[in-house]
């Protein structure tokens, strides 16, 4: 019954979204306040009905209702509750429902907090957001309905892919989708502005919080996914340049570029049409990402051909939104002339360079991801583009970006002097070089990766610190410290995000360069050494989990005769899906992780064991968290809160009239 109600709610939400798409748009064109005002209640009602539909599906999973097809295919009564809940979006249909739920959520939030927007702009923004909803409601209802029943309910379900039964991956999709779909709001603002034919500093200020929010969610989502791969896949890889990963990475790169160019719009009223274009492209890449993941096109061209309906439907959505938006852009971009005048050496120019590097690096990822398809379709060559390509083609952009960042971040607006800014950073540069040289001297191998990573990372982190310090004026140290605390949160946000980037860059380089690996057959009671550690396999036991069989080893880790820790690497066999998984034992420490995996048993009683010493592993995700936290600081900056306050004052003023 609840399932049917959910189904009806979804259909109702679809119809409301159609109204929300059409009526306010006409209202805004004709200047009819009543028609424009439809947008707000429509957005909120659409959200409530979608939320109900999503809740109904979740209830079907929680109560293990095996008369619902989706639950049969993706759940099992013995599955832990957390994974029953996350099973709601651990499949195609459910994840698309989550997607459209978030579209509706953002629309509703914009309708509540968008009080200060001019009525026509607000109506148009919500109408565009509604149109995105319409497309995806139609997609769900016509090709991927999650509420279908089965005629003969089976006794139990077929279980969720065991790899997905993990807390990291349970929350990875919601964050990622909040990011992907958050960019839909930026897109709606861009389209609305194109229809209005007006982009000014105020527009830049309205768009920025939405972009920031989407960017924060994307950052956390990608970091969670990468951390999951690190601990779950069994050898500690954290980034594979897989098409699905690239699909989430490209919107992130463009959102990063957009954040920076929107600053120029907000402060200097320049780069307007470029910012609009970026907003369109960022969301288009979100759609492309959805298309790539959902159509199975890149996993295999054949998988796509097997079930083309969904893929083609998303391709249409992609074509309509991207094509329509770009056409509109081509028609209207001319009307947005820049106002701000600035010299060749200025913050604005530095931000343009940032955008060039980010946009081109995104293009490289895009080209590499799609090249296998192009090569097969056009040149009849079946080839692969893997991590070696991306590492070679993408990394240089990040290196240059890292080199430019501290200088660009310190350049004054309008007109600066390169020499003066560089002079401020002289000690930081020397420090970074010294650290790099020290790393070079201390390491055993000959790889330049580690030292260069340390140089770049410390250049960014300490450069950012100098930037922050330079904002505190010229008084004594105590006065400057007091000012440091009172600096606008946006300044702190910028500093933290940039430092986070530096930390992540250093960590990736350090981990890649200084990792140690050991593969061997270990025998119970016979210690062996990896790096400075002595490992002893003490025993191996078998047991039963809720929905799997487990083989778990006890490994004693000691260093110089002292016990460091006991580690319990495990492997699991899930009988329902017939899949094995590894549960690596990881000893997380500040400077390094110890990573132990147990493999198969040998005939002579030994066990295959892999041991890795992974320096700086936690720093990779620590840096990402720092970036996300910086975004959060920036989002809570006074100028956005003041904008909300001003809005309220204005509204009461209008009421008093």
């Amino acid at each position: 019954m609840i399932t049917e109600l959910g189904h009806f709610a979804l259909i109702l939400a679809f119809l409301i979204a159609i109204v929300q798409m059409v009526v306010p748009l006409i209202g805004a064109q004709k200047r009819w306040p009543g028609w424009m005002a439809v947008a707000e209640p429509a957005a909120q009602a659409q959200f409530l009905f979608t939320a109900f539909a999503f809740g109904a599906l979740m209830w079907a999973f929680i109560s293990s209702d095996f008369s619902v097809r989706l639950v049969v295919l993706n759940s099992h009564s013995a599955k832990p509750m957390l994974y029953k809940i996350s099973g709601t979006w651990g499949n195609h249909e459910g994840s698309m429902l989550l997607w459209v739920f978030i579209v509706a959520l953002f629309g509703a939030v914009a309708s509540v907090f968008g009080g200060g927007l001019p009525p026509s702009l607000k109506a148009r923004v919500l109408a565009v957001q509604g149109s995105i909803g319409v497309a995806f409601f139609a997609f769900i209802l016509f090709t991927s309905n999650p509420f279908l029943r089965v005629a003969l309910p089976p006794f139990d379900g077929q279980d969720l892919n065991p790899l997905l039964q993990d807390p990291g991956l349970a929350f990875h999709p919601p964050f990622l989708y909040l990011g992907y779909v958050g960019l839909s709001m930026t897109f709606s603002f861009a389209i609305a502005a194109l229809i209005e034919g007006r982009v000014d500093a105020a527009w830049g200020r309205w768009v920025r919080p939405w972009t920031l929010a989407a960017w924060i969610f994307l950052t956390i989502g990608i970091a969670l996914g990468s951390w999951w791969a690190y601990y779950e896949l069994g050898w500690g890889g954290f980034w594979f340049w897989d098409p699905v990963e690239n699909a989430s990475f490209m919107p992130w790169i463009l959102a990063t570029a957009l954040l920076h160019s929107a600053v120029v719009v907000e402060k200097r009223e320049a780069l307007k049409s470029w910012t609009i274009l970026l907003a369109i492209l960022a969301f288009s890449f979100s759609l492309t990402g959805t298309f790539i993941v959902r159509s199975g096109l890149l996993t295999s061209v054949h998988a796509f051909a097997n079930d083309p309906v969904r893929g083609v439907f998303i391709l249409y959505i992609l074509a309509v939104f991207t094509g329509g938006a770009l056409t509109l852009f081509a028609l209207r971009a001319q009307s947005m002339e820049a106002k701000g005048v600035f010299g060749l050496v200025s913050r604005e120019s530095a931000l343009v360079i940032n955008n060039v590097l980010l946009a081109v690096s995104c293009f490289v990822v895009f080209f590499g991801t799609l090249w296998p398809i192009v090569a097969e379709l056009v040149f009849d060559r079946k080839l692969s583009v893997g991590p070696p390509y991306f590492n070679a083609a993408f990394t240089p952009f990040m290196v240059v970006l890292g080199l430019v960042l501290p200088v660009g971040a310190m350049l004054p607006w309008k007109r600066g002097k390169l020499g003066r800014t560089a002079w401020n950073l002289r000690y930081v540069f020397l420090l970074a070089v010294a650290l790099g040289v020290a790393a070079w001297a201390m390491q055993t191998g000959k790889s330049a990766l580690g030292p260069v990573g340390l140089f770049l990372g410390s250049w960014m982190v300490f450069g950012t610190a100098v930037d922050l310090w330079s904002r505190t004026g010229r008084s004594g140290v105590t006065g400057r410290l007091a000012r440091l605390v009172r600096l606008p949160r946006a300044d702190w946000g910028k500093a933290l995000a940039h430092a986070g980037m530096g930390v992540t860059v250093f960590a990736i380089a350090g981990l890649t360069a200084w990792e140690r690996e050991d593969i061997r057959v270990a025998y119970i009671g016979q210690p062996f050494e990896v790096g400075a550690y002595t490992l002893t396999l003490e025993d191996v036991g078998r047991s039963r989990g809720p929905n799997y069989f487990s083989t778990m080893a006890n490994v004693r880790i000691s260093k110089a005769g002292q016990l460091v820790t006991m580690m319990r690497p495990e492997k699991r066999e899930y009988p329902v899906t017939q899949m094995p998984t590894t549960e690596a034992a990881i000893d997380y420490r500040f400077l390094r992780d110890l990573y132990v995996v147990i493999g198969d048993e040998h005939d002579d009683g030994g066990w295959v064991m892999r041991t890795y010493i992974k320096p700086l592993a936690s720093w990779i995700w620590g840096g990402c968290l720092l970036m996300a936290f910086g975004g959060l600081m920036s989002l809570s900056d006074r100028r956005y809160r003041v904008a909300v306050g001003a809005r309220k004052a204005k509204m009461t003023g209008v009421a008093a009239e």
Partner: protein
Amino acid sequence: MKQFGLRLVLLIGLTVSAIALSGSAWAVQPDEVLEDPALEARARDLSKDLRCLVCRNESIDESNAELARDLRILLRERLVVGDSDGEAIDFIVDRYGEYVLLRPSTNGANWLLWSAGPVMLLMALIMAAAYLRGRANAPKIKEPALNDAEQARLKELLDE
């Protein structure tokens, strides 16, 4: 014919991997490791650039599939025989097609792939330079006049 052969390999591979999944083997096994550490290091580096044909975007170095294991052993055999890195890779590409290369070659249309980044960067830099030059030399434009609605609102406010 070559296409057909590849398909066949893929088909067999898929069947094998389906079986292999139940009796699992995890990435590089201790019994595969070569005695000579220098040779083993070369093998590890090379196998990071070779794709496991039946997996989703995994190199044979990371993969658990039986086919990847066979390829790892084949690669090591070639190195032990005395092949150079290039010869060993060529040997495998001859048998499995260029699909095994995770680092795409530079021949044929692939130059497009490798030059895409640099060419795009050059174009973007030229465009950015033109834009920045334009901004630096642009005359200051005065604020545009208020539109009708804003004029009306201003009048309203002034009249209050």
